[in-house]
């Protein structure tokens, strides 16, 4: 893609700082790490969940359970798509009943992914609460859903594209905005 249409809004350092701040906010809100479990949404939410869990474990001195959910089967557009999204595995190897679930995703946009994730989690049991942590909030919500912990609020237009790149998946930690007009997350 042509260089002039993309802007880098976060780098490795600012992503790490944001995740550290979110970790402290989670502890502050919940008065510690008791009963907290972390669940990331595939693919990049799961990577961020691992990093948050690592931060929280360091601060709270106990390892927290980390799970991964794939929300494909809970999407509201499955039957409309010409190309079926690939269903990946959900790994929730712990009980979530009466736990405080911190749900993690990279970008919140329309809120539809989070809606699907909430339904998926509740099918696994009745948590005491679900809190939402995202690295980027880019606005344009289509559902009454809001994050509890935000790395960075980025006002965007709908035809801009926000891309979160993480080392584990993409070889580099950065967040860029692509203004070439393709839209999407």
């Amino acid at each position: 893609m042509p260089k002039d249409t993309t802007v880098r809004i976060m780098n490795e350092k600012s992503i790490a700082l944001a995740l550290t701040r979110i970790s402290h906010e989670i502890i502050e809100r919940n008065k510690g790490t008791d009963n907290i479990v972390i669940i990331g949404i595939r693919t990049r939410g799961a990577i961020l969940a691992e990093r948050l869990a690592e931060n929280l474990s360091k601060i709270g001195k106990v390892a927290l359970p980390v799970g991964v959910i794939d929300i494909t089967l809970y999407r509201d557009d499955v039957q409309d798509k010409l190309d079926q999204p690939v269903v990946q595995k959900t790994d929730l190897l712990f009980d979530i009943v009466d736990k405080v679930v911190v749900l993690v995703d990279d970008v919140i946009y329309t809120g539809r992914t989070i809606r699907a994730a909430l339904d998926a989690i509740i099918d696994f049991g009745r948590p005491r609460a679900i809190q939402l942590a995202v690295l980027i909030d880019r606005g344009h919500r289509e559902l009454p859903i809001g994050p509890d912990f935000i790395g960075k609020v980025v006002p965007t237009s709908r035809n801009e594209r926000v891309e979160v790149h993480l080392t584990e998946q993409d070889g580099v930690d950065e967040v860029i905005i692509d203004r070439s007009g393709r839209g999407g997350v």
Partner: protein
Amino acid sequence: MSLRSRHLLGLEGMPADDINLILDTAISFKEVLSRRIPKVPTLRGMTIVNLFYEPSTRTRISFELAEKRLSADTVNFSASGSSVSKGETLKDTMQNIEAMKIDMVVIRHSAAGSPHYLTTCCQSIVINAGDGAHEHPTQGLLDIFTMREKYGKIEGLKVVIVGDIKHSRVARSNIWGLMTLGAKVSVCGPPTLLPVEMEKFGIKVHDNLDQALDGADIVNVLRLQRERQQSGLLPSLREYSRYWGITKDRLGKLNENFTIMHPGPMNRGVEISSEVAEGPYSVILPQVTNGVAVRMAVLYLLSGGRGKVDE
């Protein structure tokens, strides 16, 4: 990712990519089935008709469960007790059911090619649940899924299919799928039930069981349809059992870590002994469990693109 075909009619000619996509997707559905609530809302609002012109326990319940686990609405039809006994044709039956707004049809019929015929006279997505002696693709897929689950791959596996090869749709679907994925397939059974033409496709044909079992990894034992004896293709069930029945003392020829499979329903003491069917190497019940996950994967992958025009 979607399958290249709009319907699932058979495994003959299905590209390896498509087979692997179904098998990979089924892994995720197997996890769904292990949840506290083993149900997802994916096919909400979709209506699926199970059109069964032949008796079936496993396949029918398996399809119905797969549909329900995906939150589809299901309607069951069996030929007995329907207007079929009044002489209604398959086409008329299908078009009438379709007039009630359905999205998919799962059909089992004694006539080979009936699912293919349905695709020419209806708009719905068609899944073959067994047509005559032609194919039973979801059985083939679940057998291959079960093999892959145990061995990690299909390529290079030596699979022997034993029994009434000639009349078996299970054998055909297994053969097509396994050959596409690179397994070494051989068949074994009484000469009257063994189509020799199979050698042309690179399948080894044996009429001696011990030779066939020598060095094999997997034995897929087919059900002997007892009516074959009445039609003069077999001298007696006892003779069949002695020459081609899988009993414990036959298993020594097999590779270490071998597997015994059977698509059901079993005739214990005829094609397979009870001891073998219940041995630690038998995956007969895991096959049934996997069947639901594999059918969910097929339903999911075929469900996309509502209103898509036929290619």
